[in-house]
């Protein structure tokens, strides 16, 4: 209730200006005209979909707001010169087709994953790699993520394209987040922070609705480093213990005005209205796929008995 109230006040400006004509009290949960309101309720996992009524009586499906974190690759590249709605729509259809064949689970930077890939040079034709996701990016069918592990004292990073048909299976062994969006500093950290056993078992989540944030602070090796970590405002790194001149130089080079630059952030993101449209388009298919997988898993576990 408190969460809903906070979000409501935050979005009140938007809600009022766009849905003035459809203002309905919060007590009416079944039919409301404010998609933002219902998506708050839809955000609670127990009620995945809410069908809202339009003025003309057509139902409008709205996706929960978490979709933009679970499926960020469905959002297109914000660069306006290369955007085309029709091509993006076709790409999304292809992505859904691929997702119907293979399960691409929810994961974040900092999650430990295992990927099985068809490899002609492997002894049993499949290569499995376990690692921590240090970065993810790309949009559409080009979406990728990098897994890092230390194998025989050698750091190894592999970039996987999420929609490549050579990938047989993507498992998330431990679903968690870290304090930073990019963990490239693990390359300069002590090797124990990047080492994970290759035969690691998937861990069961205690709390299904919230993804835990691991507040781990990583210790870096002594300099030289691959990047100037002191200039990057990292949260997940222990105190760097550098001479003061490094921090002075970092201050001189810093761009503190960027956080006030609205146009910069606007150009780097897709507007909220468009995001809602995009996820509403793919929402029902993704849900169906999720349900089918759950049924298969349940049937599989039943068959064991």
């Amino acid at each position, binding site marked *: 209730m408190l969460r809903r109230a906070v979000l409501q006040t935050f979005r009140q400006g938007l809600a009022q200006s766009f849905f003035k004509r459809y203002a309905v009290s919060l007590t009416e949960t079944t039919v409301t005209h404010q998609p933002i309101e219902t998506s708050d309720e839809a955000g609670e996992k127990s009620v995945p979909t809410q069908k809202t009524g339009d003025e003309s009586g057509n139902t409008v499906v709205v996706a929960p707001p978490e979709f933009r974190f679970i499926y960020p690759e469905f959002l297109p590249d914000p660069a306006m*010169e*290369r*955007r*085309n709605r*029709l*091509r993006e729509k*076709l*790409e999304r259809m*292809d*992505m859904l*087709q*691929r997702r*119907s*064949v*293979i399960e691409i689970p929810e994961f974040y930077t900092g999650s430990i994953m295992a990927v099985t890939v*068809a*490899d*002609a040079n492997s002894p049993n*034709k*499949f290569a499995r790699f376990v690692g921590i996701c240090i970065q993810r990016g790309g949009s*559409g*069918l*080009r979406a990728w993520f990098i897994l890092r592990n230390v194998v025989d004292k050698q750091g190894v990073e592999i970039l996987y*394209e999420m*929609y*490549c*048909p*050579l*990938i*047989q299976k993507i498992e998330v062994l431990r679903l968690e987040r870290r304090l930073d969006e990019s963990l490239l500093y693990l390359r300069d950290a002590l090797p124990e922070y990047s080492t994970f056993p290759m035969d690691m078992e998937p861990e069961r989540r205690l709390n299904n609705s919230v993804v835990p944030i691991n507040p781990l602070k990583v210790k870096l090796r002594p300099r030289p480093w691959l990047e100037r970590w002191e200039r990057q405002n990292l949260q997940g790194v222990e105190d760097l213990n550098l001479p003061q001149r490094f921090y002075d130089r970092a201050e001189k080079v810093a761009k503190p005005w960027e956080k006030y630059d609205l146009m910069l952030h606007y150009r780097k993101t897709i507007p909220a209205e468009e995001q809602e449209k995009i996820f509403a388009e793919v929402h029902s298919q993704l849900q169906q796929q999720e349900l089918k997988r759950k049924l298969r898993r349940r049937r599989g576990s039943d068959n064991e008995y």
Partner: protein
Amino acid sequence: MFQSLEWRNEKLSYLAVKICLAVDITLSLKAFRLFFNHEQIRTMSRVKRRTTHPPYWHVLKNNQRTDEKISSDNLRFVQEVIQDKYKNKSPIKGSDLDIEKTEWDPKTKRSGVIARNIGVQHMWEKDGKKVICTVLHVLDNHVIRYVPPEEYAKSVIGAKMFKNRKPLGCLVVGAEASNPERFTRQYCSLFDEVGLLPKKRLARFIVTPNAALPPCTPLTAGHFVIGQAVDVYGKTIDYGFQGVVKRWGFKGGPASHGTTKFHRRGGTIGTGRDKARVWPGQKMPGHMGSERRFNRGLKIVRINMKYNIIYVKGTVPGPTNSIVQIFDTALPRRKFTEAPPHPTYFPPEDGTLPQEDIWDSSLHVFGSPSISV
């Protein structure tokens, strides 16, 4: 080797036709830099490669009027008049049009198609190799008129093109219907005979008489066949005024080691001895891009009949959302061996819908199981 010029398309400017007829391939294919002909380079440097104005025989296209103070009632009346004039036409079937049943033969030149390059999508082949495919959206093409060979040979460009050869016909195709209010009366009159909404884009395609199409024929993505090779014509990305490093690939100078003001410059532009002047065609900074180019022999790997989309393996000249023209290829070893939809594709008479998404056999279809090597 440079004799067969039947693929030459009408959009070339009048000035460039004469010389481009002989040397166009040398400019468009990088490999031909091996056969460096200094004579040709010197002549080409005198040719005007870009024009911002259309040929003198074109009518004025865009409305020059500024905001007129018309009342809203009158505006509404104007829109009613427009709607009355261009009432919706029902889709034309092949049987309605009076097309002569002509046979296809290997020497036939079919019409091309106007499309928009809407971007690039990555796809994978059956062995897991990633390929870059350009997505081309075939716009609402309609044939505006057909000019028979005898008449076309009398026109300015036709006379030049078919000076010593047997003349071919010309098909005028338009794409992207839009509001008549934005065009001049003279431009809209080009479409009055056919009764179509004026098109934003027009193009001419040189066709053999047996591939002629009557006016108002729609051209769709089905005009092409999966696996065929096409040539795509477009205007390259406009880079503006560019320096010698980007424009010609010069190496410039060292970035450090005491270099004074010589990082991205051209350096020497000639010797002192022979000729004792700068040769014409000397590579220097200047306007780069916005030039007419063909990318030849691109393979069609996927056709989506529902949205009129063609996926072509490789890249195409021009930026995203620019208009291109697609032709059957001129490369002799990749031409048709079997008859394509001739003269164009028409949906079957018995009402059966065509297959919506057609894939080439080399591509991995996304809905099929993962590849295991």
